[in-house]
């Protein structure tokens, strides 16, 4: 498990719409070890009142050549661990996409270029290819279903699947248009993106699971693999759709975490395990689970 705990520098903490930020960290040790679907624990330094690290999905990885700088305008030389070697360097910039929701994320949002944070990453087992590739190969299309900031967990898996030539489609729902962040990065990876907002400010007016249901109902002869991340009710609805249309579904779970290492057992969720129910750690056995494994409340 090549996790690393380092103090790293912030390259950019770019405000996006709707209280979202894209945090770019100079973290070569962590970035080069990432598998799609893993997460990071971010620690705010020098505070005695906010102690615990904040778990965040690893949104994106980028390389830099040190001469031309880096940034989204320059074509990123992505090489995710496990992928076929490509020309270009191993990634050294880790991007975390987050939304300010509480004290911790508000403090992180105040950080500026050059400030340091503690970065423990990569963590969790991510989307294990050996576990889902058989289903992906059988599927006509991979459907990514994102709710709000859940989008952050799905970009790297989508990149990896695109590298392998899979056809993909994104269903992305959020409260408002301002919450639909990160869609630009998905564009080159998917055949189509379907947006939905609860207030109707962009795309379909309502929950994203409605157009998802219509799509599944319109293509009952096709096989899909669903990959979902988002708030609890949205995940439950997605999982129910996958179940009723009989498609395999992977979910990336979120929870409050203490350590991210599997020691404190603070992030456990109820799962079916060996014929009975038990608690398993989102940080270690997850964050990605097969949908039928989770005991949905």
């Amino acid at each position: 498990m090549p996790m690393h705990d380092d103090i790293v520098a912030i390259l950019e903490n770019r405000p996006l719409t709707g209280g979202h930020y894209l945090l770019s960290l100079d973290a070569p040790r962590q970035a080069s070890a990432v598998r799609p679907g893993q997460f990071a624990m971010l620690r705010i330094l020098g505070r005695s009142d906010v102690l615990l690290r904040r778990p965040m999905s690893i949104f994106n990885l980028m390389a830099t050549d040190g001469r031309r700088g880096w940034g989204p305008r320059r074509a990123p030389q992505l090489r995710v661990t496990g992928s076929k070697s490509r020309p270009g360097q191993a990634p050294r910039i880790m991007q975390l996409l987050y939304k300010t929701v509480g004290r911790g994320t508000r403090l992180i949002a105040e950080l500026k270029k050059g400030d340091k944070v503690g970065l423990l990453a990569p963590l969790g087992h991510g989307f294990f290819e050996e576990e889902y590739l058989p289903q992906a190969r059988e599927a006509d299309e991979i459907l990514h279903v994102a709710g709000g900031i859940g989008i952050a967990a799905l970009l790297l898996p989508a990149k990896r699947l695109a590298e392998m030539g899979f056809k993909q489609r994104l269903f992305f729902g959020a409260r408002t248009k301002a919450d639909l962040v990160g869609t630009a990065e998905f564009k080159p990876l998917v055949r189509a993106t379907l947006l939905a907002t609860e207030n109707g400010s962009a795309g379909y007016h309502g929950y994203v699971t409605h157009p998802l249901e219509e799509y599944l109902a319109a293509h009952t002869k096709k096989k899909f693999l669903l990959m979902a991340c988002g708030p609890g009710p949205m995940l439950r609805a997605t999982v129910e759709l996958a179940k009723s249309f009989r498609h395999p579904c992977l979910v990336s779970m979120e929870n409050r975490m203490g350590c991210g290492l599997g020691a404190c057992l603070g992030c456990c969720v109820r799962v079916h395990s060996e014929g009975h129910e038990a608690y398993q750690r989102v940080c270690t056995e997850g964050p990605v689970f097969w949908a039928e494994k989770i005991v949905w409340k």
Partner: protein
Amino acid sequence: MTSRESAGKTKVQSAARSAGHTARQPRAAAASAAVETFTPQIETEIAGIRFQNPVWTASGTFGYAKEFAHLIDLDQLGAVCVKGISADPMEGNPEPRIYETASGMLNAIGLQNVGAKRFLSEKLPFLRTLKTRVVVNVFAYSTEDYVRCIEILNEGEGIAAYELNISCPNTRAGGIVYGSDPRLTEEVVAAAKKAARYPVFVKLSPNVADITVFARASENAGADAITLINTFIGMAIDIETCTPRISNVTAGLSGPAIKPLALRMVYQAARAVKIPVIGIGGIASAEDALEFIIAGARAVQVGTANLYDPGTSLRIVEGILDFCRRKRRHLSDLVGSLKVPVKKA
């Protein structure tokens, strides 16, 4: 060299020069003292067992140690107190189980653990490969089950001691009964001591009016040492939904927020008993640890800090060594060395 760099350097040099007259003399003295090589002794002995240093990781915050193997050198720890073990596996509480509060955290994990048998077969083999001592935290809901758990664990080799959790406030039917009634404390400690193949340390609950009563009850019942304190019972509420932040409603508060309370209790307990005291509660730095040692603790445990900064314990070992070198004192000279001003009549 750019002009900016040279300007910076000049500034540093001139600062050093201006400080030189006062600072250089003591530094020279310290250097010559170092030549005499004072090697501080920070080993500590409890119940006849030698620990290579007094900094241990606290139960429930360090899993079964293996979780941290990629991040720190486990061999450098004084001891690892493993996650609480019960005779039978426990599945724990529903989520949410943790919540961060100012300078601390609430937890109600519900003592989820693999049970004594699986601990021996799955967890102990790795722990035995370490140079570090292994203290096994034990809990139960009846005296018979404490004994039963200890009897299973007695089969294991390489355990330094048991730490009896009589204070975990997390489980509704749980250990709180033992930890808040001196007679029950004596009963369970005596029974555990009788059953145990290894020394028994008793981890006390802070949720009592007078900690010295429970320190003495443990000592009277034959405890080899006392560990204090466990978490304070606390609570947090989500005002938007009018629901508790933790599914168990109440939860154990830990972290730097509780340190002064823990220190006071360690000080009181250390004066009340002759058996060794192991201090715990919000320790996050060498200075924190030294406060507990000076108050009377022969060893300390680092808890919540392991979660957010796994390097803390080893930095504390280094910090204690540095302090001992600077003061030219061994650890044993520091234990209970608090100078209390004498009140005039």
